[in-house]
């Protein structure tokens, strides 16, 4: 046993020292740092499949203006140094035109390199507010509204539905959780909302009964969650509903997935989520592309009857870049970063055929639009309850 173990260790080490290099292909290359493991694994896996499926679907239908897409990726489990390593490796080996990154930390770390040397545009799973500054992040793009914008959309909705409403913000004590809080406070004030409480919790699984005690006293009309996926939002809702409170609950992108009604069941009824995409599971089809996506999914994954919106995010991410390539090719321009960037910035009122819930317009290095959706727990779906809300 000991010998086998030592032998294995030696083999591993030698393998590591001779990392092979491969040659780049002519196709359009899309590279990705995937998030299959790690704390983000629950979403990363689906997101990754969304990207993969979209590219396969596109390639099966002749590619983008004849260009096939080659998709390469590696998993990093939400670790910055690994992501940077993967970026270097994948860009060196495949020279991708597009890159899907992961954490905010990675987006920041890679920014100087991204600007300096590579012919690559990047998007990622980060909606960090800081990335909306195009002068600082000219090669990065947020596929959707930033966290601040998401929060603003929800607050706008609340202010419209109940002017002067009492609002509480609950967020996790992590980089992600703290991101839009200051801006959110300012926005609430601007909208004339009464911000009665801001609560910080540890991320992940925590007991929230004390926080419920606080909210019980402040009696907010709305509680806005940011920085969570599912827990402990369900617990807040459960306990506050048990207490007979009429508070409405709302949350930003990562807290607005199907997990809400799938896991928290009837407790989640009436929960409000902000979403720039449509959901996989809708009462009626929002458009042709959406139908195609459903059909393709049914064909290649017959076992997957439904998909969380992370999958939609992956699909949409692929779609945005495909559109950018398509438009650039149509305009007869070369596929360089600058041309692609210009094309991207020129997108105005693009109809995505039902994938996005809003007409796509690019502004502030992002797509600062969204709609508010409401959980219908009995039916097991989100239903749109607002018009498109734009943040300027």
């Amino acid at each position, binding site marked *: 046993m000991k010998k086998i173990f030592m032998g294995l260790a030696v083999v591993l080490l030698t393998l590591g020292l001779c990392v092979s290099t491969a040659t780049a292909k002519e196709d359009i290359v899309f590279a990705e740092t995937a998030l*299959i*493991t790690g*704390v983000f*694994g*629950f979403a*990363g*896996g689906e997101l990754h499949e969304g990207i993969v499926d979209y590219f396969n679907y596109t390639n099966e239908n002749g590619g983008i203006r004849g260009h096939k897409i080659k998709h390469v990726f590696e998993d990093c489990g939400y670790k910055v140094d690994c992501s940077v390593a993967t970026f270097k490796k994948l860009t060196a080996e495949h020279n991708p035109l597009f890159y899907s990154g992961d954490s905010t930390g990675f987006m920041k770390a890679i920014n100087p390199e991204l600007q300096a040397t590579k012919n690559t545009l990047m998007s990622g799973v980060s909606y960090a507010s800081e990335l909306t500054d195009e002068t600082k992040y000219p090669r990065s793009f947020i596929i959707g509204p930033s966290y601040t914008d998401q929060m603003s959309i929800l607050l706008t909705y609340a202010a419209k539905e109940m002017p002067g409403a009492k609002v509480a913000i609950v967020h996790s*004590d992590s980089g992600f959780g703290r991101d839009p809080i200051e801006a959110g406070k300012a926005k609430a004030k601007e909208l004339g909302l009464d911000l009665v409480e801001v*609560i*910080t*919790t*540890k991320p*992940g*699984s*925590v*007991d*929230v*009964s*004390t*926080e*419920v*005690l*606080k909210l*019980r*006293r402040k009696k907010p009309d709305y509680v806005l969650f940011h920085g969570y*996926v*599912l*827990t*402990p939002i*369900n*617990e807040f809702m*459960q*306990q506050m509903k*048990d*207490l007979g409170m009429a508070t409405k609950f709302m949350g930003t992108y990562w807290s607005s997935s199907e*997990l809400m009604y799938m*896991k*928290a069941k009837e407790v989640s009824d009436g929960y409000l989520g902000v979403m720039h995409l449509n959901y996989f599971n809708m009462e009626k089809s929002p458009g042709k592309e959406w139908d195609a996506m459903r059909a393709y999914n049914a064909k290649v994954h017959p076992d997957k009857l439904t998909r969380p919106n992370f999958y939609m995010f992956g699909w949409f991410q692929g779609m945005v870049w495909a559109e950018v390539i398509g438009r650039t090719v149509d305009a007869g321009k070369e596929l360089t970063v600058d041309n692609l960037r210009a094309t991207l910035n020129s997108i105005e009122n693009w109809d995505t055929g039902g994938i996005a819930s809003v007409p796509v317009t690019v502004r502030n290095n992002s797509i600062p639009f969204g709609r508010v959706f409401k959980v219908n727990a009995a039916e097991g779906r989100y239903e749109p309850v607002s018009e498109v809300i734009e943040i300027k």
Partner: protein
Amino acid sequence: MDWLFFFESSIAGLATGAIYSLVALGFVIIYKATRVINFAIGEIMMISAYLFLTFAGILEWHPLIALPLAMLGGGLLGSVTEKLIIRPMLGESPISVVMVTIGLSSILVGAAQIIWGPGPRILPDFLPRAPIFIGELYVSSKIAYSALIAIGLLVCYLIYFRFSRGGVALRATASDQAAAFSMGISVPKVFNYAWFFGSMAAALAGVLVAASGGLSPYSGSMALSILVVVIFGGLDSLTGALVGGLLVGWLETMTGAFLGGEYKMLTIFTLLTFVLVLKPYGLFGTKEIERL
């Protein structure tokens, strides 16, 4: 000062503390017998909660069957751990043994992801949900019942270790391994037994924590607070585990209530630093006598 809020928070804090005490008890039992700091205790909690989820949520067995089975599962996990990776480490430096348990926690996290998937889960409701009011005082039902169950097991453990043969063997081993061995106590058996019971306590706590806080493969990280509890109370003191658990649970909750959640870790770890400087072996821990 809103006294009602103060008392409500205090009760919530003590209830959390009771669960901390239970995990800490499991931790201390293991430490007392085997001198091993088990950094994987959070992951044992997590796996046990997943076992409960499997039995009660997926197989839809009655919680009264599922809960003991999950505890048994947790206990067995502890026992197997002891046999496979702790026993061969006998006599190695404490750092190495700690690292073994850290390695184990990584294995368990990965295993949980492979078996149950990476997404967050919610346990099926098995505790009464109606909020409890004591006069004006509101207590969240889940946390109240969890605390009661935790206290129940705590009492059972204390009685058991005080009076049973196994308990005596454990205490004998804890105070002097060689002497215990020469008195005919099978020390390896005691080790295994400590890991089994210690992990079982953690298992129950894991289910209770997951019941109110949800569950994911990374849930085990909550055990950081448990480390504070056991160091605070003294690594080898059952009393320390009980008192430390309640105190740390209370303090953490009060910090959250009056200062904000971001100060929780800061407060308990700052407190810990002070305690360590003033009482290097915790409030109730045995001072190791140094010899030349």
